[in-house]
C-alpha cells in the first residue's frame, strides 16, 4: 500500500515504499532537538532539511515524557522524539506505527547496541530509529566535600547527605524511582532487583522508602535545566543527578559530574512515527535526516548527548571532541546504563511469578514521596 492513505487507523504494518512528499511535517520533540534558527540564527539544522526536501517543519517541545504522551494523543504530530519511558507507552496506546527501516537509509550507520532494543522494537517490529543517548550523571560541588563522592550513596545515604542537607537535588519525575532502585540493586541485593524498571510491590516500597528519606535532604527537585544550572551555579544545590549538557553549561569551576560506580539510569531517544501521521512521507524524510551524520551531530551536540553513530562523530573536529566527552559509541560505558523504560505490570526482567508495579503506581508513589 502506498503511504498516507491508511493513517489514523493505528495500523502497525510498516509501509513498503514512500509516496509523494506532502510538503510539511509536524514534529513533537524535546527542546533543542528541532532548531530552525528562530531562537538563534547560528543553530539551525531544520532549514537545510526544508530546502532539501521541501517539507515545511512545524514543531512543539515538551518538558517531560508524560507531557509528551498527552500531546502525542492529540494526533497533531507526525514524528515524535520519545525517550525509552515514553516509547512503549506510545506503542501500547496505538499512537505509534511500525516503521520500515529500509526506507531510512541512514539507519545502517546507527550503533548496533542501540538497534532493536526493548524500547524501540516490539515483537521484532521496529517502531522508530534511535537518535542519541545520555546518562543521568551524578553532579556535585567539590567545595562541599572533603573527598568527592563516587557512588549514588551521595544522594541516597543519610549519613552522606547529612553534611549537605537542604542542598541535594533530584530529577522531578516518577521515573527517578528507578535511580533509587538502581542504588538498591547494589546496596540491598536481598531485594532481588534485577532491573530498576521492573519492581514488584515490595521492591517499589523499598525504593519509595529510600526516596522518602532522601526527601528530607532535598533542597529542590528539578526538571528544567535552567533551574538546575542556576542552583549549582549559586550553591543552592551541591549534589544531585544531572545531564552532561547541564554540566557543560555551568561556569562554577567547583562543579563536576561523574558516572558513579553503580552505573546510572539513562535515556535513549527514538524518533517514532505517529499512527495518526498526516504527513508520513515527510516524516520518513525527517527521521532519515535527523539520524544522518550531519543532522544527528548538530542536534546531539546542541542538546548535549551522545550521537547515534561514529559517522556523526566524524563530521567535524568539534563533533569528535563532543563524542569523547559524551563517551559516544563506548559500549562499556553504555553497558553501565539502564535506559529509561516504561514500567508495566508484566515484569520487564522476565519474572512471571509476580506482577510488577506499573507507571501509574510509580506516579502515585512519586506524589507520595514528595508529600
Amino acid at each position: 500500500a502506498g503511504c498516507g492513505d491508511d493513517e489514523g487507523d493505528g495500523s502497525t504494518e510498516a509501509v513498503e515504499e514512500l509516496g509523494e512528499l506532502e510538503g510539511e511535517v509536524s514534529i513533537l520533540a524535546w527542546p533543542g532537538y528541532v532548531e530552525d534558527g528562530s531562537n538563534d540564527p547560528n543553530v539551525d539544522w531544520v532549514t537545510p532539511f526544508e530546502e532539501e526536501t521541501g517539507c515545511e517543519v512545524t514543531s512543539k517541545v515538551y518538558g517531560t515524557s508524560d507531557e509528551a504522551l498527552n500531546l502525542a494523543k492529540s494526533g497533531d504530530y507526525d514524528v515524535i522524539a520519545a525517550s525509552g519511558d515514553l516509547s512503549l507507552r506510545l506503542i501500547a496506546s496505538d499512537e505509534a506505527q511500525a516503521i520500515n527501516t529500509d526506507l531510512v537509509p541512514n539507519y545502517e550507520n546507527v550503533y548496533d547496541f542501540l538497534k532493536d532494543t526493548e524500547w524501540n522494537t516490539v515483537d521484532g517490529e521496529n517502531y522508530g530509529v534511535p537518535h542519541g543517548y545520555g546518562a543521568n550523571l551524578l553532579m556535585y560541588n567539590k567545595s562541599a566535600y572533603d573527598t568527592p563522592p563516587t557512588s549514588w550513596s551521595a544522594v541516597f545515604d543519610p549519613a552522606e547527605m547529612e553534611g549537605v542537607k537542604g542542598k541535594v537535588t533530584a530529577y522531578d519525575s516518577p521515573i527517578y524511582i528507578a535511580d533509587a532502585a538502581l542504588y538498591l540493586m547494589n546496596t540491598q541485593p536481598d531485594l532481588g532487583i534485577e532491573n530498576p524498571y521492573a519492581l514488584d510491590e515490595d521492591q517499589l516500597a523499598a525504593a519509595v522508602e529510600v526516596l522518602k528519606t532522601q526527601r528530607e535532604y532535598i533542597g529542590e527537585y528539578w526538571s528544567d535545566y535552567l533551574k538546575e544550572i542556576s542552583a549549582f551555579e549559586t550553591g543552592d544545590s551541591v549534589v544531585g543527578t544531572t545531564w552532561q549538557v547541564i554540566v557543560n553549561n555551568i561556569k562554577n569551576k567547583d562543579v563536576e559530574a561523574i558516572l558513579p560506580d553503580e552505573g546510572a539510569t539513562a535515556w535513549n531517544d527514538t524518533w517514532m512515527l505517529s499512527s495518526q501521521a498526516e504527513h508520513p512521507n515527510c516524516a520518513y524524510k525527517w527521521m532519515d535526516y535527523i539520524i544522518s551524520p550531519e543532522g544527528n551531530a548538530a542536534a546531539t551536540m546542541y542538546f548535549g548527548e551522545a550521537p547515534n553513530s561514529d559517522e556523526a562523530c566524524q563530521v567535524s573536529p568539534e563533533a569528535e571532541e563532543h563524542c569523547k566527552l559524551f563517551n559516544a559509541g563506548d559500549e562499556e560505558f553504555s553497558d553501565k546504563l539502564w535506559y529509561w523504560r516504561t514500567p508495566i505490570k508484566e515484569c520487564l526482567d522476565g519474572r512471571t511469578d509476580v506482577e510488577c508495579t506499573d507507571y501509574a503506581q510509580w506516579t502515585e508513589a512519586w506524589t507520595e514521596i514528595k508529600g
Partner: protein
Amino acid sequence: MERSDRRPVSRLLHRWPAVRLTLLLATPLAWLLLVYVVALAALLVTAFWSTDSLSGEIDKSTWSLDNFRTLFENEVYRNVTLRTVGVAAAVTVIDVAIALPIAFYMAKMASPRARRWLVVAVLTPLWASYLVKAFAWRAVLSEGGLVEWAGGVLGIESPGYGLPAVIMTQAYIWLPYVILPIYAGLERVPNSLLEAAGDLGASNGRAVRTIVLPLLLPAIIAGTIFSFSLTLGDYITVNIVGGANQMLGNLVYVNAGAANNLPLAATIALVPIVIMLVYLAIVRRTGALENL
C-alpha cells in the same frame, strides 16, 4: 409619525423587552454554558472513570469512586490541600495587608496627579511576564542572591527556596490584582463619611476601622478572589522557588498533563473547585462579586 415606519426592529424591541433581554443574553450565555459549564461538567464526570496506565486510554465503561477513595484515603492529598490553602491564605492576607495602606494613600492622600502616576506604577509590573518575575525572585532569594547580597551587612539571610519563598513570590505577582479593586473601592467611599466619623470623635485609625474597612469589604474580597484563586491553582511558581514542595496545582498538572491520568486529575481538581465555590457562596452576600 413618519419616523416610526423606518424602525421596525427598534419598535419591536421596544415593545417586547423580553425579546431584547433574550437577544442580549443568548450569545454570552450560550458561550459560557457550552464552552465552560459543559467542560466543567464533563470534567466532573471524568472523575468517576479510570485510565489504563500503559496506553493512557480512559476507560469510560466502568464508573467507580476509586479516585475519590484515593483522594480521601491517601494522606498526601490532605497534606497538599492544607498546604495549598495555607499558602493561598497567607498570600491573600499579605496582599491585603500591603494593598490596604497603599490603596488608601493613593485614593485618599495623594494628589490627583500623583494618583495617576501611582496607578501606572502599580500596573506596569503586570506586563513583565509572570514567568520572568518568578525567575527573578529565584535570583533574589538564591544563595548569595540579591537579598543576601544587599542584606549581607545587616546580616539578613534569604529564606531560601521553599514555602516562604512561594508565598513571597506569589504575593508579589498578584499584588497589583489586589491593589486595584481596593483602590477603586476606596475611591467610592465618600470622604464625608470619614469626616463624619472624625467629627463624632473617632480618631483616624478608629474611623478607618469602623467605617472604611466595613465599607471596603466587598472590594477587599474582590481582590482576594484574585490572589486566592490564582495561588490555589498555581504550579509554576512552586516549581521555580518552592524547593521540594508541591501544591494542588502540581498534582492536577502532573496527573493531567504528565501522568496522563485525567480521571485522577479531575478528582483532585474538584478540591479547588469546591473550595472556591464555598468561598464564593460565603462572600456573595457582601456584593463582592460585583467589584472584580
